[in-house]
């Protein structure tokens, strides 16, 4: 192990992780279409390959072959750059996400001691991709979409961060590894149930998914911030959305559902498998929500974020802090 330089290890791990995340994205997309189909009494995509398993490849080929249009009124540089900002921030989160007990450093690229703060910081940059992309399109619907995205992400990020802090107080550390290790006895969704619910709601809003997909509300805004995008650049936004979904699922698993800790003492199954299973459940939950709930009205979305989620999150934080201080 000492013979391999650290940068090479990180490079190899990053390559593997990139491959894994992109494959997960591809099949999460297929799974979403399947689940939505089933819930709407349709079979879902099943034409390409057995059980539709080659559908992601077909979609990728289609997106790559499509013409990449740039509107005349667009700001060409920012317009072209925006999808990459979205994608880059979506991917870079995985630099600090541990997938298994990372004391040996096998299951994470970097074991950062302020991992959760880093994740918050990186995901906050993600909104730039959306808002710049919409703004630089030089068109009305993308602009409205990106304005919505900015306002929505800022207001929900507050409640999200507050729901993190409850966990951080209980765990006494900001390292993701430490947070998971603090959950060996009780997963934090038990003592932090309110925080967990708030996190799940805000996570849906952060990833711009139904019922909070005001950013790309097709009934009002055509396709929202990515109306003008086509071909591969649209594909990049699409990948970013799903990777973000995967990210918030990972964070939910790490913070509230014990990460790679096995439930009911089933420790003979490796931790990574538990992690993947839990993340999978969350991904399914997001698809399930999408099949169930209608879109919120925009003013109600903002009112819900500021008047319900934020006060409840604050209250939760105060109660948690008091209980921990008095103990």
């Amino acid at each position, binding site marked *: 192990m000492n013979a391999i330089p650290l940068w090479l290890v990180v490079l190899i791990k990053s390559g593997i992780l990139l491959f894994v995340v992109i494959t997960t994205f591809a099949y999460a997309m297929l799974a979403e279409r399947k*689940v939505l189909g*089933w*819930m*709407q*009494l*349709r*079979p879902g995509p*099943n034409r390409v390959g057995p059980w539709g398993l080659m559908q992601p490849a077909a979609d990728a080929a289609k997106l790559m072959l499509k013409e990449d249009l740039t509107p005349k009124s667009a700001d060409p540089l920012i317009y072209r750059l925006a999808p990459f900002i979205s994608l880059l921030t979506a991917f870079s989160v995985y630099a600090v996400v541990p997938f298994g007990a990372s004391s040996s450093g096998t299951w994470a690229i970097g074991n950062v001691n302020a991992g959760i703060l880093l994740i918050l910081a990186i995901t906050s940059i993600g909104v730039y991709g959306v808002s710049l992309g919409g703004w630089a399109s030089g068109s009305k619907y993308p602009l409205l979409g990106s304005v919505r995205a900015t306002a929505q992400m800022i207001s929900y990020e507050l409640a999200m961060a507050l729901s993190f802090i409850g966990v951080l107080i209980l765990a006494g550390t900001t390292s993701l590894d430490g947070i998971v290790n603090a959950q060996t006895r009780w997963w934090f969704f038990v003592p932090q149930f309110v925080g967990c619910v708030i996190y799940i709601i805000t996570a849906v809003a952060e990833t711009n998914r139904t019922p909070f997909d005001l950013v790309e509300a097709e009934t009002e805004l055509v396709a929202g911030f990515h109306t003008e995008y086509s071909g591969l650049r649209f594909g990049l936004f699409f990948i970013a959305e799903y990777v973000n979904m995967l990210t918030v699922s990972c964070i939910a698993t790490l913070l509230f559902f014990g990460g790679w800790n096995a439930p009911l003492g089933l420790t003979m199954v490796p931790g990574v498998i538990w992690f993947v299973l839990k993340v999978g459940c969350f991904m399914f939950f997001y698809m*399930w*929500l999408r*099949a*169930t*709930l209608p879109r919120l009205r925009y003013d109600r979305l903002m009112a819900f974020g500021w008047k319900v989620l934020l006060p409840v999150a604050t209250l939760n934080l105060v109660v948690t802090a008091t209980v921990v201080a008095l103990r």
Partner: protein
Amino acid sequence: MRKHLFNVGAILRGLSITFGYMFRKRPTIEYPSVKKQHAPRFHGLHELRRYEDAKERCIGCELCSSACPANAITVIGAENAPDARISPGERYAARYEIDELRCIFCGMCEEACPTDAIVLTPRFEMSDYRRGSFIYGKDRLLVPPDAGRGQAPDDRPGGIPGDLGRVAKIKSTTDVAEGYDATWRGGILKTQRKGLGSL
């Protein structure tokens, strides 16, 4: 507050409904590979039929053409040569064309035909790439002569893809004298009801 809690309950109920739907039987029929049984009296592509001795039933009377509400049928009749008859009557259809794009598949041609020559089959997959190819001439409408001899047209070797109906045996030329023969319709009904049961 109570109202908000009620809303949470509503969301949970909604989630349970969608979850339940995941395991319901899906009514999708995966069309090209699985075909739905059409209605017993489905009106599909036309067929010009023959007598068992391979003579054409059509006598070129143009009644179908005048009955057609969509003006889709063009018939140009000609005299039969006495030594080489094409139909048992005086005349036969030299040209018989149906524009399937104009056709509304009402079946009035079938009802108008005095010799049961034009018949709507249950075949419906006629898509093509060119408009011109929707004008069906005798080459495509007419049952092949070898299929007319003692063999129901739909029992042709290889069969017709997607054709679920069975046209009953065509009676010989002499049977026409005894008037309208509706037995073949009953035959279709029987086989198709059987098909519906297995659905």
